[in-house]
């Protein structure tokens, strides 16, 4: 009976795949890459690699690439000629590398010198089939002087022809592409120029674009980290302008990045607009000068939401589509170094320009808090800079830690308000942890700093710390307390009396989680029909019986002093009711209908009393 739990349903049988090359080309070109435009990148990559290979045998070799746009003529579609003066290929290499997918002229050397080449997959050229039906390549190897030039003609159905040429050409490779119908847009001077700049901006090999008589070097602008500056203002301007141009957005600051691991150099730009905690920053990443992608997410630690980077990496390994990196140790190490750089920047900022750091934190507050609340590393970076509302004014968590051995907090905004005044007058620093993520941040603090005391203060236990009355004083207050208990019983509130500062405060209303819940049940009961009313009542009784809210009078307050002298219980009752409602309002508790009625009655009676006095004068 139990067989289906233990045995699988499949029996494996082996078959050989039938591979249709045309289909594979289609698959690669349309699904592996993000769009047809990447054929430019693939051609440039092949060119750069070929030049690199040639430099290994001719150290002094000056590489260059030339791209020529030839407009449509008569019935001929527009054409692109892509030329490099790199290593070139022999006939044998042409067969080997261009006929076998996955083979690459770079693979053999790979084990030895992975660092030198960008491409690894031998499929780059195939991407040209996205924009052309036929690829014509003329290549001559620089390795073997006597070897003739080779012409290779490949078609998108997977067939190709090779012939040796008799004419003499200089070593290197020339690729001719004729626009496929509908793809002419990729063959204009402007579009090609834009794409070459987009992908090859940082390449050190000069790239020339020509169109008719016109020729121009495309990539002559160097990134800010490669330039030399006379002043720090000049440097700052240069970095920020570059970032602005590149991303089309304004940044408030920049951080130069450099990491041995991954061979990374570049800059991180501090975003000037708030980020959402759930959206990751997209970085612009070049690999050996060639743009890999402007959508890379995994380059920085997760907490680095406030920056957008542009970097050039020398040793990171791209994924097959060359639009992101493999998650490997090198990337991990790079991320750590870059994270350290950002962290060092923040710490420096905290020392030298704390207001600028505050601006950044303010701007990205939600994102930073949400990450710091869940990520220990992020907490270590930002924790100290996050500000809390406290009974001693706004303060960073770092300052709180410096000043106090114990961090005390109130867990809701209401609770904080209930105790703020009292705590402040006693020089007690209590943090308001009622806002989103605040409490998680504090539990993270506890986790990160096990020696630090982090303590929740609820309003109810705060009053335990207030000064008690002497026996005689207590007797004076007896009637007030008794009347108050009876008056407040229907509101599930008990009374007490203590001495506390400020003396201007007549009462504090304190509650706790359970009493709050009971109160919520009671408020809801007023709305609900009988079916639900009974149930809510049961909840209220169940929870409120153990935990009452409390109205604590201040013995030092003048009004309370006067109240203790009054013997008339009706008057006492009314005043207690008013004090109760006032305390609720001060603590921002929603009022029930009954409490609202108390407030109205009380106010009317007061107005009445005032008018009565006026009357007496007449």
């Amino acid at each position: 009976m139990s067989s289906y739990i233990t045995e699988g349903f499949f029996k494996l049988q082996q078959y050989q795949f039938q591979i249709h090359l045309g289909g594979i080309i289609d698959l690669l070109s349309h699904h592996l890459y993000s769009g047809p435009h990447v054929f430019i990148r693939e051609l440039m990559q092949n060119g750069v690699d070929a030049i690199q290979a040639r430099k290994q045998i001719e150290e002094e070799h000056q590489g260059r690439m030339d791209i020529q746009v030839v407009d449509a003529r008569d019935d001929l579609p527009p054409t692109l000629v892509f030329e490099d003066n790199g290593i070139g290929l022999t006939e044998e290499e042409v067969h080997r590398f261009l006929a076998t997918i996955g083979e690459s002229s770079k693979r053999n050397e790979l084990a030895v010198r992975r660092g030198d080449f960008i491409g690894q997959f031998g499929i780059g050229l195939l991407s040209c089939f996205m924009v052309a039906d036929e690829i014509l390549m003329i290549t001559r190897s620089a390795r073997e002087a006597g070897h003739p030039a080779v012409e290779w003609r490949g078609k998108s159905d997977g067939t190709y022809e090779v012939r040796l040429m008799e004419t003499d050409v200089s070593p290197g490779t020339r690729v001719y592409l004729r626009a496929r119908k509908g793809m002419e847009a990729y063959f204009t001077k402007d579009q090609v120029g834009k794409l070459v700049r987009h992908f090859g901006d940082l390449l050190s090999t000069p790239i020339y674009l020509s169109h008719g008589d016109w020729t121009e070097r495309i990539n002559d602008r160097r990134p800010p980290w490669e330039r030399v500056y006379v002043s720090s203002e000049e440097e700052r301007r240069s970095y920020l302008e570059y970032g602005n141009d590149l991303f089309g957005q304004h940044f408030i600051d920049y951080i130069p990045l450099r990491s041995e691991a991954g061979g990374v150099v570049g800059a991180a730009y501090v975003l000037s607009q708030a980020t959402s905690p759930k959206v990751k920053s997209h970085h612009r990443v070049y690999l050996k000068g060639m743009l890999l992608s402007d959508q890379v997410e995994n380059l920085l630690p997760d907490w680095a939401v406030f920056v957008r980077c542009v970097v050039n990496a020398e040793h990171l390994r791209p994924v097959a589509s060359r639009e992101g990196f493999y998650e490997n140790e090198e990337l991990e190490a790079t991320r750590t170094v870059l994270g350290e750089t950002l962290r060092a920047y923040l710490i420096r900022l905290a020392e030298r320009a704390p207001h600028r750091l505050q601006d950044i934190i303010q701007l990205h507050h939600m994102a930073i808090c949400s990450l710091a609340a869940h990520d220990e590393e992020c907490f270590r970076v930002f924790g100290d800079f996050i500000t809390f509302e406290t009974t001693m004014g706004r303060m960073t968590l770092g300052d709180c830690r410096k000043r106090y051995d114990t961090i005390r907090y109130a867990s809701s905004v209401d609770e904080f308000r209930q105790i703020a005044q009292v705590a402040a007058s006693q020089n007690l620093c209590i943090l308001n942890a009622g806002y989103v993520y605040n409490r998680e941040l504090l539990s993270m603090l506890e986790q990160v700093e096990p020696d630090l005391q982090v303590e929740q203060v609820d309003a109810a236990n705060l009053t335990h710390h207030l000064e008690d009355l002497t026996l005689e004083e207590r007797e004076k207050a007896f009637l007030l307390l008794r009347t108050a208990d009876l008056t407040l019983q229907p509101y599930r509130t008990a009374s007490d009396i203590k001495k506390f500062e400020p003396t201007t405060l007549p009462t504090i209303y304190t509650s706790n989680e359970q009493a709050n819940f009971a109160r919520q049940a009671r408020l809801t009961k007023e709305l609900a029909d009988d079916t639900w009313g009974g149930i809510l009542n049961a909840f209220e009784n169940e929870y409120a019986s153990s935990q009452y809210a409390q109205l604590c009078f201040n013995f030092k307050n003048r009004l309370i002093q006067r109240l203790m002298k009054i013997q008339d219980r009706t008057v006492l009752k009314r005043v207690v009711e008013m004090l109760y409602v006032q305390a609720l309002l001060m603590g921002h508790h929603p009022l029930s209908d009954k409490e609202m009625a108390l407030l109205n009655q009380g106010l009317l009676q007061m107005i009445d009393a005032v008018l009565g006095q006026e009357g007496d004068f007449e």
Partner: protein
Amino acid sequence: MSTDYRQRIEEIIDAADGEESDRAVAALEEAVRLADVHQDIEWGFKARESLVQVANFSGHGDKSLVAFSWILAQIDKNPEYEDRYLRYDLMWRYKWIASSLTNFPHISKEQILNVVEDMERRYKERGLSMRAVERIRYSLAKEFGWEDKVEEHFERWQSLPQDGSQDCEACETDFIMDHYLFHRNDLDQALEIARPILEGRLSCIGVPGNTLTTLMMELFEAGRVEEADRMQRKSHRYATKNADRLWAAGKHIQFLTLTDQLPRAIRIFEKMASAAVKSRELSNRHTFIRGARTLFLRMADRGRKKVKLRLATDFPVACDEPYRYDVQALGDWFSWEAERVADLFDARNGTSDYHDELKEDLELMKKIQPLPRKAKVE
């Protein structure tokens, strides 16, 4: 008070979205208070709608229920609110609330039945199938010991149309399996029914976790320990997610104790004990208490005097030195607590089921079946 309270409420709702934890519940309660102070009905709805969801799936059925009843009351006052302010189908959620009522022994039988009437009325008003209501009536018949009605409810339930208001297919399949297990006592047939779940073709937030947990104990009792152990291993993560899973955690502790895997039982106990102590969902919590009782009684039987446990300081049994507890004291406390809660439920239900279960647990302890060695090293 700041004028941007709406933004704060929204932030809280966003932050709590999909996060089923005590903290998310507390934050949403705060959002509710904010809306109420400003007498903002719209945000009162939105905050409570999230609270109903989050509280329900994190073991705070009481809070879910109060928020839900507020929504119902407001909609009774002004039916337009339902379409205007609510993102999700209110009646779909009524099922959660109605089925959670039995969790609280201070809610009387009559009050529970009244709510089911109310649910039925509202379903009828909206032209919905009675299938979801019948499903609740089935559970109540089980809870209140009306065994003779159980089969009747089951058959009626099966005949009622599925119009999307009923439980999801995974939950319904799990329910049919339960019926075969606990009413028809047919384990083989139950396994056959659970097949689509066990093969991973049906799943939801509760399935397969609770299916596996249920089968784990049933297979154990049938002497099929190795299969049971596989069920345990596949669902232990489920059983320790949050306070909503206390019953599953309790079953796992019981099973691991009965198969002599005490260290694994203790790990689950440590992880969930603090939530169990605080939980207000008494019957959910009760299953955990039962599991813990079995665990510590068993340890005492084996002559163990002390045990090291990583527990929070608010744990109701005192330790003699940090983290070192007296096994006897633990066994006593959990036995006492189990009896106390069983009293509450049996009194409300007018049955002796909860006490009978406690006796059965002790009987089971006489049938310890250690796992064969090879299964342990999996």
